[in-house]
């Protein structure tokens, strides 16, 4: 154990050695599950936080929460593209996410609804989504209550976005941030936060996503289809196949 002024930090992995686990949204390793029922929820959380990239297929059928996470990833990439000016693999990544969102949107029966935002510049824009739902909310709850539903939906979508945003901001090829710091003790403390505490605590913190998504589903004035397995999404709705050569080297 490494203790920092009363805050006990789990042992640091040796440099270059990561704890056994799965890839997080940023490609980092998250602690692995053990098959326990509680861990099944963690599997769902890991998927909701994942990058949905070409490195692996989503293990669980994709549902409404996955759709929101994909819209969030597409939104992020559109923003990066605007900032970077269309360089590198960003345009292809955007195409990948647009294809994923489009297929899942169809699979969940959300085409032509205000949640069908993949083609817009800001697919996870809270105001756009919520104002798009306004007519349906009004017809269902009346004008006054509809305004409160909009606030509630906006609050949940914002919290969801913030949970996904709380991620590693520093991308790296080898080592973690600060891996070249010459002071060994300081380097070890940074690694303990970066490799051990942050991943573990973030995963636990993200458990809220499951509850949030269930509530969002009940508040939404649209009918959302049942989760769809990846094979069916590919076969029936054109979800992109990561093994297809056209997607090689996108991520």
């Amino acid at each position: 154990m490494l203790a920092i002024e009363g805050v006990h930090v789990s042992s640091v992995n040796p440099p270059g050695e990561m704890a056994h686990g799965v890839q997080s949204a940023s490609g980092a390793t998250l602690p692995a599950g053990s098959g326990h029922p509680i861990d099944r929820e963690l599997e769902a959380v890991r998927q909701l936080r994942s990058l949905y990239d070409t490195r692996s297929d989503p293990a669980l059928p994709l549902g409404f929460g996955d759709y929101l996470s994909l819209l969030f990833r597409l939104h992020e990439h559109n923003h990066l593209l605007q900032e970077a000016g269309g360089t590198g693999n960003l345009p292809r990544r955007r195409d990948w996410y647009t294809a994923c969102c489009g297929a899942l949107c169809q699979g969940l029966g959300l085409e032509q609804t205000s949640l069908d935002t993949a083609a817009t510049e800001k697919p996870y824009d809270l105001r756009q989504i919520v104002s798009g739902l306004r007519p349906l909310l009004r017809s269902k709850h009346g004008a006054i209550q509809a305004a409160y539903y909009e606030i509630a939906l906006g609050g949940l979508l914002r919290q969801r976005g913030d949970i996904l945003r709380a991620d590693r901001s520093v991308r790296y090829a080898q080592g973690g941030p600060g891996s070249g710091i010459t002071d060994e003790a300081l380097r070890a403390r940074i690694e303990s936060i970066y490799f051990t505490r942050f991943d573990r605590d973030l995963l636990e913190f993200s458990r809220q996503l499951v509850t949030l998504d269930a509530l969002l589903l009940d508040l939404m004035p649209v009918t959302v289809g049942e989760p769809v397995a990846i094979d069916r999404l590919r076969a029936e709705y054109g979800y992109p196949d990561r093994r297809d050569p056209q997607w090689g080297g996108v991520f």
Partner: protein
Amino acid sequence: MVAQADQLRITQLTSSYSPDAPPQLPLAFGDFLSLLWQIDRASGLPSREGYYRRSATALARGLGFEQRSLYRLIQTTPAGKIYASLPNAPYRGTERLVDAHDRQTAIRQLADIRDHILAMGAYRSEWKLGWPGSRLSDVEMRERLFAVFFTAFEGQFTHFSRLLLVVDIVLQEMLLGDRQNREISLIRLIREYGYPDPHSSSVRQQFNAGN
């Protein structure tokens, strides 16, 4: 479980530091970082920004690092840019240039973790007219929303935000170059270093002016 002392500390670090919510515990380096975050957040609100700048300036002097580049950061960096400027600290000094880039990267990551946590900790202060969904007539839905925004969120956030305690120690080491446990009481800060007195009516008026 989070120890009560840790919880009180986290509550202070994620608080607004406004005259209505003055710090209850002695202030340390982590409070300074939270005050910098509040300056950024007050961008576009000059009176509020001024309050937080005075608070951060007084705290930096009270903690004895007014000769450091971090102190000058408060005076020279526009609100909204301070947290983004923190990673450049290794380049402002003359030491350890060999690993300055690595330090810069590490500071950026740790400051970002801090930023994420404080942003979520500020939810409550942003709910001016009740929490989202508090006026729904559907009681069951209202209770479920309450559970998400308060019970579930607070429970998880309490644990997650504990990272602040560790992050702040490491950030102090990288930004000030030591792990010395500096602390100073609010009373002393007000009397000796010009920290804005939260009980002063003029301070309160100024804080709320134009907002």
